[in-house]
């Protein structure tokens, strides 16, 4: 299986080099979207010293963390998305995936590596690096391990939520529209959760656990607030989210094979 992965990575790199202009423009465009966010905060902080108890550098840490996790997801895991799955089902490619002795979910993931995600990754590393430097965060071994686990958990959370939305394709078919709702929902992670009302905080913690992507972990690393120990939960939440989504996915395939296309 690893050979297959290596092969697919080679294929993708070939493809990127073939459309080289697109490769760079895509990364740049995504990088730009994150720059815009930073500009937003920078302008705001020209007028206020602190946003709900968050200083500018702390906000940077918050969003840097999210860019990093989203970057990994964006690059390696967007093979699974509502609009891609819809396309494959409609043109018959999904049936072809079921005819191969391989897990179709893995096939979907490995088939599409999105170089645009590098824009998020680069932004994340830069912003996180700058912020942790400005805040004098000490990267002890313990912190590094926790960061790694946090990022893994965050990526799992993002992937699981998207997988759940994608699974809806088996029932709705025209699921591409779900992306129109999903991506705005992700916007909530751009800002610290404490600016929202309690109901939304509840939703983002227990229903769509986006809060665990960057908010709770950031609280820990920045040594803020009562909720900082919730950061330890991120990998666990990620695992639970994945189990739920994967079960739904398996059920979705079962339903798909019994209703045809």
């Amino acid at each position: 299986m690893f050979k297959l992965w290596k092969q697919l990575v080679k294929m993708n790199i070939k493809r990127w080099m073939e459309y080289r202009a697109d490769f760079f423009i895509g990364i740049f465009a995504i990088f730009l979207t994150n720059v815009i966010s930073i500009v937003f905060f920078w302008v705001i902080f020209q007028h206020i010293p602190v946003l709900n108890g968050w200083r500018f550098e702390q906000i940077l840490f918050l969003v840097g963390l999210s860019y990093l996790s989203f970057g990994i997801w964006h690059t390696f895991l967007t093979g699974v998305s509502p609009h891609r799955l819809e396309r494959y089902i409609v043109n018959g490619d999904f049936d072809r995936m079921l005819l191969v002795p391989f897990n179709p979910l893995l096939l979907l993931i490995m088939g599409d590596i999105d170089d645009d995600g590098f824009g998020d990754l680069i932004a994340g590393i830069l912003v996180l690096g700058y912020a942790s430097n400005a805040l004098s965060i000490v990267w002890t071994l313990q912190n590094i391990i926790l960061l790694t686990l946090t990022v893994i958990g965050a990526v799992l959370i993002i992937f699981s939520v998207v997988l759940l939305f994608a699974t809806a394709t088996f029932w709705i078919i025209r699921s591409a529209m779900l992306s129109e709702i999903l991506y705005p929902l992700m916007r909530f992670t751009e800002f610290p959760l404490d600016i929202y009302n309690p109901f939304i905080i509840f939703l983002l913690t227990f229903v769509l656990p986006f809060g665990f992507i960057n908010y709770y972990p950031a609280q820990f690393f920045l040594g803020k607030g009562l909720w900082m120990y919730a950061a330890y939960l991120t990998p666990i939440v990620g695992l639970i989210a994945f189990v739920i989504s994967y079960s739904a996915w398996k059920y979705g395939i079962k339903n798909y094979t019994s209703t045809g296309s």
Partner: protein
Amino acid sequence: MYLDVTALGIKEMLAYRTEFFARLVGALINLAVLWFVWNAVFAASGLAVISGFSLSAMITYLVVSSCIGPLINSGFEYEIEWDVRTGRLSTILTKPVSYPIFRIFKGFSNTIFTLITNVLPIFLISILLINISLPVNFLAFLISVVLGYFVNYFMVFLTGMWAFWSTGSVWGLSLSRRMISDVMSGALIPLYFFPTWFADIARLLPFQTVFHIPLSIYLGKIVGIDIFYLFVQQVIWLVILGFLSYFVWKIAERKVIVHGG
């Protein structure tokens, strides 16, 4: 005859009405996030007015900005790309129509449909739920929106022209343009919030004619004779970009006819 194009376009869009509804939900979610953010900003500031904006003026600004956005970002640069890639362009060129004019009228169908399904609902919901203010000078506002619409139209058209030369996709360029526009036009944050040096530069660029000018008129930041000065700016950009678009189109057209697309 061109009006038939518009009518047909609207019919096509009816098939995608669920996508438009989803987009409306997405826009409302986005608006909700920003509502919380600005409430937090004003709370943090402790001032009633920041850079000449009260909280309610800011919220109004956000809502109207969210209304103008979908109106102008119809994604027709992708339709141009589609025409080029699938060869549909050649079919259209065999007909006695001017492609740019055809595109304008097709764009109208997008705009009308978006107006009804997205813009009006957003506006009405906002008036009912969060009590935004009405335009100070509705007629002037309307004129500035229309002028801004066309300025933006030509910018998007030029982005679409990239499809004739690139082997990849228009997406990266389009996204980059949108991001830059969002910042420079005041869509993201009113130009009034930026440091003067930045705002001065932004005022020299065409982007501000799309958001900053109409929004300033709406909120009564510019009144009386000064409004005409703004109209003049918009018209100048309209003419410049219009000519540029036509010029580039002519080169592209020649490329297609000589090289067969």
